[in-house]
């Protein structure tokens, strides 16, 4: 007969109450794990997305930095345009390693998504775009036959959705243009997978934006030159310069309020769980006042009683922890889905990253929570006087 066994058997006496308390703790733990998992996963995915952009700096027309950050990561349309003179002006800067002009346009396709309608994203690029992204590979086909050919290279997912193969023709709705699929990229795990690429000149022609660009991606030879390079470009009128660090900061700012809210919810959930466990155990202590008195009469010290009651709390929290961790692991896809629906920008890749270290830490936090929650009831029980406790129900 061990204190642990006494504690465990006592919890089994009031099964529903015990299970409900365990579920309460489990929910708090699941929230905690999901929150920290999201924190880690989001930052990792964001960094990954930014690294895969392949450039250090994006030059865009002056406007909202949030919009520009979105353009940088999502290739969003409906943006401001700048003259391609800017491109010509900075093209020969000796600090530049690689530079790629882009023109992004989105076209509404009524037939898209099985007749529900969807925006198709087109990006006008030059071959330099591939230099920025050396990991890009063709699944089939290859580069455009000429700088102003009516051809398209489809991102992996764009081709999958449209079910296109090299040689097929695609129709650009609204502007009545037919393009021939010249190539299909391999999956990159980035936003590029959903884009239809066309030659920059062709894009400027068909979207009637001659000499216009939405952005210029720049990779510097030496990252240390970034600050000076940015400063030099500040003098160029009508443009803004966005560095990767800024984008990272901008996106994190955007999700900051969501994170603060999630943090508050997690704290509240943990607080409620602690109160609920304390309440359950305290109720159980009051119900067992006579038993506690008898145990003292049988030789139990205050420490023995404290240990038994504390163990009950810790057991509840351990079971709650296991339950919560399981819920967090199996429910991470659901959490990810909700986050993607609510956040203004969600990077590609897994948003909720649950590592063993996080599970171990959350589990430890649950045990600590048990220790805190159990202290008062355990103290209360251990300080009962045997005679008063035994005679309490008479």
């Amino acid at each position, binding site marked *: *007969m061990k204190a642990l066994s*006494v504690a465990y058997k006592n919890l089994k006496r009031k099964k529903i109450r015990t299970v409900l308390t365990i579920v309460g703790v489990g929910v708090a733990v699941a929230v905690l794990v999901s929150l920290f998992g999201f924190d880690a996963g989001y930052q990792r995915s964001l960094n990954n997305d930014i690294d895969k952009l392949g450039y250090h700096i994006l030059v865009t027309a002056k406007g909202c930095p949030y919009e520009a950050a979105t353009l940088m990561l999502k290739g969003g349309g409906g943006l401001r345009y700048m003259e391609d003179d800017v491109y010509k002006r900075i093209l020969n800067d000796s600090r530049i390693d690689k530079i790629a002009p882009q023109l992004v346009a989105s076209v509404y396709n009524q037939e898209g998504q099985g007749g529900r309608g969807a925006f198709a994203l087109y990006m006008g690029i030059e071959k330099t775009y591939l230099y920025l992204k050396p990991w890009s590979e063709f699944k089939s086909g290859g580069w455009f036959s000429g700088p102003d050919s009516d051809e398209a290279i489809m991102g992996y997912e764009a081709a999958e959705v449209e079910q296109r193969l090299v040689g097929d023709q695609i129709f650009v709705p609204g502007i009545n243009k037919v393009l021939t699929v010249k190539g299909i990229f391999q999956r990159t795990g980035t936003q590029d997978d959903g884009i239809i690429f066309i030659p920059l000149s062709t894009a400027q022609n068909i979207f009637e934006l001659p000499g216009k660009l939405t952005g210029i991606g720049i990779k510097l030879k030496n990252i240390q030159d970034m600050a000076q390079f940015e400063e030099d470009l500040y003098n160029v009128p009508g443009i803004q310069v966005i560095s990767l660090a800024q984008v990272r900061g901008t996106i994190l700012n955007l999700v900051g309020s969501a994170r603060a809210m999630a943090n508050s919810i997690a704290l509240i959930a943990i607080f409620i769980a602690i109160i609920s466990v304390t309440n359950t155990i305290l109720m159980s202590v009051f119900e067992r006042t006579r*038993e506690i008195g*008898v*145990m003292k009469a*049988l*030789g139990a*010290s205050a420490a023995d009683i404290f240990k038994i009651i504390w163990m009950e709390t810790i057991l509840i929290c351990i079971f709650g922890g296991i339950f919560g961790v399981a819920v967090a692991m199996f429910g991470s896809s659901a959490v990810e889905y909700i986050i993607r629906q609510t956040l203004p920008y969600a990077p590609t890749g897994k948003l909720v990253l649950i590592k063993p270290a996080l599970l171990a830490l959350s589990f430890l936090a649950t045990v600590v929570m048990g220790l805190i929650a159990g202290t008062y009831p355990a103290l209360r029980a251990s300080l009962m006087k045997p005679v008063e406790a*035994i005679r309490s129900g008479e």
Partner: protein
Amino acid sequence: MKECIIKAEKLTKTYKLPAEKILAVREIDLDIYDGDFIAIMGPSGSGKTTLLDSIGCLTTISEGKLFILGKDVSRAKESTLVTIRRRFISFVFQDFLLIPSLTALENVLLPLHFARLPQEQRKAVEVLKRVGLGHRVNHLPSQLSGGEKQRVSIARALVISPKLLLADEPTGNLDTKNSQEIFDIFKQLNEQDGLTIVVATHNSKLGSLAKRMIIIQDGRIIPREKSIL
């Protein structure tokens, strides 16, 4: 000469209530020797239970002196009283007070756990067999009759091989047949094992089995001829 297990000198116990002070037992002198079988009798509220609680170190005394095995424990700390309860004194209560979530065997093992003694299952089963419950070791209290519960309670008290067994109205909740069985167990424990037993009871039959009878009234021990019993 027999060893004096309990010696009470002018033992007084007062309970302080918000409005008044209650003198539950007053100036009791009592010697309990090894092998004694004492029945404490008296009307309800006379102080029998308080006297048992006091000599059983379940509560501290207010005035007077109390010696357990020659050691003065009148003002002893709770830790000392715990040690005495763990090793020397056992209790049997009117309401059995078994732990409902534990089987008969586990209830009997519990005092060994608290006393930090080896939890020999064989020994626990032996004492259960001794009280006639060898076939009910794995039953929960809810699966036992009143008489069986009280026998588990006695087995639980015996498992630490105490010097003194204190029983507070042990037959109070039992029918005549079960009461008789408990009487027999007590008698056997005293006569065959020489266990010192002090029983607080209303039951005159159980009282008559004891070697000595103490009558208590209004918190004092009174001569038998003056008692109203």
